């Protein structure tokens, strides 16, 4: 469903991403790994429309999306989280999820001002969807708290829930396990797998936690200094000499 072809991104003199290609099929979890500064987040930024790639193509369900505005890409069903959590801190947890559903709500001002039955119905539906996902990520009890007051792990889960209420086809997670304790990481592991199994969402995952990556990925792409280093199944990657060298070299 997603195909990235020869993607390059240059910042002034720095070629942060150099000819990276990857593809994601439906019902698949694909990981991108690589040392710090390898260019993983930059690939995400190009895919989600924050950066306009210097060259290369990004095809989502057969349509070219490179260089399209970010909000359009997200409306196509490609939604992302951020390496540094970005919530609407002064809004409540449930409001964070309502903002994400603005497109499912009636945007007609008049019907909203008059509270027509159809508007109420839609509002109720989005509240229901919000509480469903809050329950799903274990935050239902905190629904009316300010998002900024949540613990770090809870914020990460809220960010994923916020993506899910938009009903995406492809979810892009940028280091979702960063800063989580082992128990939380285990929960996250199950959540991501369930997103794929139960909700039929494909996932692109950037992650440094190797056990998580090896555990849930169907395929893995390794990037080093902007260049693709290897790609394959977890087993292939584990035994790939180049990858071992790059990681040992870094360590």
């Amino acid at each position: 469903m997603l195909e990235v072809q020869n993607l390059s991104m240059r910042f002034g003199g720095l070629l942060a991403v150099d000819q990276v290609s990857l593809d994601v099929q439906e019902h698949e979890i694909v990981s991108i790994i690589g040392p710090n500064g390898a260019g993983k987040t930059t690939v995400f930024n190009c895919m989600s429309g924050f950066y306009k790639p210097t060259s290369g193509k990004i095809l989502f369900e057969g349509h070219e999306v490179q260089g399209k505005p970010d909000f359009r890409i997200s409306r196509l069903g490609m939604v992302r989280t951020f390496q540094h959590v970005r919530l609407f801190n002064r809004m409540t947890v449930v409001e964070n999820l309502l903002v994400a559903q603005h497109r499912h709500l009636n945007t007609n001002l008049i019907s909203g001002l008059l509270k027509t039955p159809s508007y109420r119905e839609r509002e109720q539906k989005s509240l229901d969807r919000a509480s469903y996902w809050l329950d799903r990520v274990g935050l239902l009890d905190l629904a009316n708290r300010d998002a900024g007051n949540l613990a770090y792990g809870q914020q990460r889960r809220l960010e994923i829930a916020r993506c899910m209420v938009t009903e995406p086809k492809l979810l892009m997670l940028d280091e979702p396990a960063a800063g989580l304790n082992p128990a939380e990481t285990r929960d996250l592991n199950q959540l991501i797998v369930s997103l794929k199994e139960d909700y039929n969402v494909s996932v692109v995952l950037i992650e440094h936690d190797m056990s998580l990556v090896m555990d849930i990925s169907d395929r893995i792409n390794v990037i080093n200094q902007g260049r693709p280093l290897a790609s394959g199944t977890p087993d292939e990657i584990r035994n790939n000499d180049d990858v071992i060298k790059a990681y040992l070299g870094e360590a």
Partner: protein
Amino acid sequence: MAAHNLKHALFCAIVTLIVAYPILGFNLVSSGTDIILEGATTQTVISVLLAAVVVFLFQLFRDNIMALLGKAPALNPLANRQPMEQSKRLKLESTILTLIIIGALFWPFFVSRGSVDLATLVLIYIMLALGLNVVVGLAGLLDLGYVAFYAVGAYTFALLSQYYGVSFWFALPIGALLAALFGLVLGFPVLRLRGDYLAIVTLGFGEIIRILLNNMTSLTGGPNGIGGIPDPTLFGMEFGRRVKEEGNTSFHETFGIAYSSEHKIIFLYLIALVLAVFTALVIRRLMRMPVGRAWEALREDEIAARSLGLSRTSVKLSAFTIGAFFAGFAGTVFASKQGFISPESFVFLESAIVLAIVVLGGMGSQLGVILAAIAVTILPELAREFSEYRMLIFGAAMVLMMVWRPQGLMPMRRIHIELEKQE
């Protein structure tokens, strides 16, 4: 540290001298056809020097003075109380607002004509400030040219009545919609700018509209303005002594009461009151609708909002347009109240005053905005004797306010949507 302070204070004092001396220290006196430059009296020169000394001393002990000012809120018993629970606070707020509105309904029948007239002006400012609050307080867009939309509303009514004899009630929605359209058209190119740039460009737009009105003499009468703008009617009843429009009746004859010019003023006041309440209610509702949440989300974290499919341009444009709409509303009422408008009424100062009301009230909070509008409009009237120093007092009050209570009189507490516990 002390040396640095001394240097800084000296610098400030010298700047004061450089700025003040040429302006105050010399007078241009016309003698016959010539203009002669004269030195000012020694008294003025001494005052200028004194001012420089005051600036010097203030800058020297600035930290101490500011620390003292910072402690002042402790004197205010309300400053440190616990925030109330949302449901309780909302109830209290709506009770207070209802009481204010009921009081405001009956109040004009007991006071002087001048007070009612002033109160109408306050209500117009409340409408303007509530509208600008959407743009600045909720959507976080610094708009310094807000007065342009006020002018559009006022001129729409004035021109429509002059050329087509359109009445107030027809002009009211047209003026508001036209102002909204202006907001949409002007907003489209400028809203991709951020922060300071946006402020400067909107400032420019405000001035352009005023200058256009000034120069399109054949249409708008230029600096002479437009007069004879009709008063609103009540179901076809006019408030003048004699009926002007054919087919209308007059209010005092219909009810068989003596003619009084006060009727008209009270009626205008009541219209302004109803419209101000309408404005407040609509905006309150908008804040709880998806648009309102989108404004806030975009202000909170633009990148996250965009990643969820919110279009920056359309969300900001909606705030800009809705703000302009209410300015158009206020403009129509203003034109009707004054009966005469000219570009003079729509100078930058008006934008600044409305912005000051929003900031003073505590961005985003409606009750705060209402209190601030009352304070900003009425205080200068009470201090008439000081009218020459009005702007000076105004500026000083703003500076003090920013030091003492930067969050405004009543900072906004958000109205949350609560998720009810489901079983």
